[in-house]
């Protein structure tokens, strides 16, 4: 074992995934099938994760490469393992481990296991392959295989109309993205077909076309990652899949897309120009704000999570945009901070988003409900799940001392370095982006107060919610692992930053200063006088003061407690329907920000005094991107299809006229040819 190259092991892992997937086809319907399948996935992902981690922390600049006689015949299938791939391998396989573990428990409730089990390992294999691929063909092949496998998973519960629509929109957008990437690679490879990444790296983008390649790469990877306005499929597709698959899609697959963007923009495209940052920053910031704002408007808990993924992807792209801006101006140290922030957030988001989707899955199994309006009071019925979901919510809301804050703090530090940029466009743009980032973070907190508060707190709004039971131990274990990791990454950010450093080094050429040597494990991105943060101390501090307060009060004063009916200003109402709902919680923000983002229209009908009929509030929310971008496109296709469809119903004579007409045209061309 020891003398095996890590790359070989990883490739064997992928093969093992594929074999598992093949085995799962015949045994898919058997009741015990989830044990071998998820067990194998768990094991394989574990091994892959370990090897990725080993390569990453070995800090070696060695990149393992190999070429297999597959794929494009005269190019072969190139595979390469460098620190960047290794980092993403860790992220993805960590998600794979957690999802497989969760699947062991959650899979029991699956009504159609034969539609999940074969595709689950295939999906994992596809994502791993993307990270290792080192030529355009292998990359796109893996990329699309990943899409195809996840599409099949989205279609698991195909009996529901909504899921079929989700699958369709998903696969169409995936295909669009792949074609965009294909064009990008086509430009990079040139007419002679230099499809190997090594060739592209050596040649760079054709002169003058680098911007076009970047735009295509942004379209291609952005459609998979969920950048606005290419995100429409994401909130449909991610919730449609079984929850552990949703976790993989949201927490992990979007990261593969980010990997794709980094690989193209930072590694293959050659020297970076500062202006590339402009579109990336704008798109990222808009994505962040619109994503979380949409999340606030949702009632389906998994859809809330999906929209929140869009927000986080926006944040990561903002960080990458900053890195482009700095790198384009040769400010490598600042670029290293930005990229570190991006990669850190990649890891963090994969952890807490998987955790949250697992939690949503647990709620779904316990109550059969995804609509928050029918939940409530679950914290009393499912205390462990509730606690873990709360940890995830705090983490994703970027609150200290959990991990979400650490990475967003780094991002803000990178933003604060922007005044040193020479370009005015960037100088003015980046503060605005920073403000949008802050807005997004605050909205995220509001969003998760709402999500957690409505689903887990208050009183049960339905019988299903009041009869909920805690989920099985395996699911809890999977969530607990992620929650602990969230906490650890939050209070020891220095370790993560140092672990990520080789990856940063490979794409930026430099890295952030070593953090683990700094006293007390603080993180100091630039210099101590500028800014520093110590998650551990903050955590200890809070824990100590809270304990002190508990101790002091319980000892020195009263510890007595009495349960009584709720006070509610003296008007307690027995019906749970009088509680604040998800919609009413969002109302203030909807009114303030929804006006221009969603053209929200509220109509209130209050009956006259004496009239006993109920008052009505009618809220219409428009998805403007869908209405202004996609609906016209759909209409256009429909109109063209309708118009052209007449050509199916012509008479033979008219068809002959078409032939005749073409003949005449060609003859005319020939006659006018000199």
């Amino acid at each position, binding site marked *: 074992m020891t003398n095996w190259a890590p790359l070989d092991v990883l490739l064997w892992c992928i093969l093992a995934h594929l074999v598992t997937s093949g085995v799962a086809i015949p045994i898919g319907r058997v009741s015990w099938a989830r044990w071998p399948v998820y067990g194998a996935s768990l094991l394989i992902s574990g091994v892959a994760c370990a090897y990725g981690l080993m390569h990453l922390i070995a800090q070696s600049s060695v990149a393992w490469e190999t070429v297999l006689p597959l794929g494009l015949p005269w190019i072969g299938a190139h595979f390469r393992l460098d620190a960047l791939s290794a980092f993403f391998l860790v992220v993805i396989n960590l998600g794979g481990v957690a999802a497989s573990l969760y699947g062991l428990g959650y899979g029991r409730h699956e009504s159609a296991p034969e539609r999940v089990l074969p595709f689950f390992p295939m999906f994992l294999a596809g994502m791993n392959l993307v990270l290792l691929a080192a030529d355009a063909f292998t990359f796109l092949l893996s990329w699309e295989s990943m899409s195809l496998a996840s599409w099949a998973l989205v279609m698991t519960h195909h009996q529901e109309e909504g899921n079929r629509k989700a699958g369709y929109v998903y696969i169409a957008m995936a295909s669009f993205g792949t074609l965009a990437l294909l064009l990008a690679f086509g430009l990079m490879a040139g007419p002679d077909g230099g499809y190997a990444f090594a060739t592209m790296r050596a040649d760079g983008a054709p002169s003058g076309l680098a911007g076009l390649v970047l735009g295509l790469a942004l379209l291609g990877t952005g459609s998979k990652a969920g950048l606005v306005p290419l995100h429409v499929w994401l909130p449909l597709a991610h919730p449609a899949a079984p929850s552990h698959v949703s976790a993989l899609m949201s927490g992990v697959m979007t990261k593969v897309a980010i990997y794709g963007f980094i690989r193209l923009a930072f590694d293959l495209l050659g020297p970076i120009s500062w202006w590339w940052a402009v579109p990336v920053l704008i798109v990222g910031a808009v994505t962040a704000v619109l994503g979380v704002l949409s999340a606030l408007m949702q009632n389906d808990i998994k859809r809330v999570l999906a929209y929140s993924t869009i927000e986080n992807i926006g944040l990561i792209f903002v960080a990458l945009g900053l890195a482009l801006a700095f790198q384009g101006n040769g400010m490598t140290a600042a670029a290293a901070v930005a990229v570190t922030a991006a990669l850190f957030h990649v890891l963090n988001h994969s952890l807490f988003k998987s955790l949250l989707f697992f939690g949503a899955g647990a709620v779904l199994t316990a109550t059969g409900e995804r609509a928050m309006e029918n939940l409530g009071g679950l914290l009393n019925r499912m205390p462990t799940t509730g606690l873990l979901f709360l940890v995830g919510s705090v983490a994703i809301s970027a609150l200290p001392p959990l991990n979400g804050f650490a990475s967003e703090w780094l991002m803000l530090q990178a933003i604060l370095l922007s005044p040193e940029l020479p370009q005015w466009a960037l100088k003015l743009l980046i503060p605005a982006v920073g403000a949008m980032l802050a807005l997004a973070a605050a909205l995220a907190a509001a969003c998760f107060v709402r999500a957690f508060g409505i689903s887990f707190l208050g009183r049960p709004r339905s019988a299903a919610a009041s009869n909920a039971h805690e989920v099985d131990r395996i699911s809890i274990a999977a969530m607990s692992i992620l929650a602990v990791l969230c906490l650890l990454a939050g209070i020891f950010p220095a370790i993560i930053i140092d672990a990520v450093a080789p990856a940063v080094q490979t794409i930026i050429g430099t890295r952030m200063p070593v953090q683990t040597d700094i006293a007390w494990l603080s993180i100091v991105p630039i210099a101590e006088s500028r800014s520093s943060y110590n998650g551990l101390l903050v955590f200890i501090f809070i824990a100590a003061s809270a304990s002190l307060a508990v101790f002091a009060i319980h000892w020195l004063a009263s510890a007595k407690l009495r349960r009584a009916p709720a006070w509610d200003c003296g008007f307690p109402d027995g019906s749970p329907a009088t509680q604040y709902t998800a919609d009413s919680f969002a109302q203030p923000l909807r009114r303030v920000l929804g006006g221009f983002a969603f053209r929200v229209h509220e109509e209130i009908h209050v009956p006259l005094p004496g009239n006993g009929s109920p008052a009505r509030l009618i809220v219409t929310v428009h998805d403007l991107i869908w209405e202004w971008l996609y609906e016209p496109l759909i209409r256009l296709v429909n109109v063209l299809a309708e118009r052209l469809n007449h050509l*199916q*119903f*012509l*008479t*033979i*004579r*008219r068809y*002959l*006229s078409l*032939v*005749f007409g073409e*003949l*005449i045209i060609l*003859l*005319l061309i*020939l*006659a006018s*040819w000199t």
Partner: protein
Amino acid sequence: MDKLALDIAHFLAGSLVLVSLMLLYQDRLPALLNVFAFQAIILALSVAWQAYVQGASDLYLTAAITLSVKAIIIPVALHRMIRRLGIHREVETAINIGPTMLAGLGLVALSVVVILRVTVNADVFAREDLAFALSVVLLGMLMMVTRRNAVSQVVGFMSLENGLILAATGAKGMPFVVEISVAFSVLIAFIVIGIFLFRIRERFDTVDLEAMDDFRGESR
């Protein structure tokens, strides 16, 4: 090949084009069939002349086939058919005869221009022969697309094919000419039989192709 032989060949080929234009002009089916038979006779003459000039005896066979099938058998058959169907009065046109004639003249001009432009290096005889043949082909096709009635479309198709035979016989030493003319005769026979069959089996009120494909693929 002496000059006279050439002139006769040209005269015959030119007449073919003229008769093609006459075909376009007809507004009654019986007259159309008669003109077509006339065209077939001219073609047979032309083929026979080529056979004589080129000394290619197999072309006589082609001439004979043309004469027997196109000038006699098929016109007679079609005559009987239109009488049985009672559609002998009028040719149903998609575009009026006037514009069609103009279009036909345009097509002749087009073929002349095309041939003159593309065959700068070819010998004169081939060029002129080709120009006539192309004109006949195009006029035949024009007939097919401007007539609604199946019988006149068949006539159009046969006239198109006459152009092909003209071209083939004009191309000196071309093999398979006889085979080709046989193949085409079979094709035409198929078409004629097809029209008969459809009428008998499906009881179309007319042999108007438009009425026949009211189904046209998919119900809409």
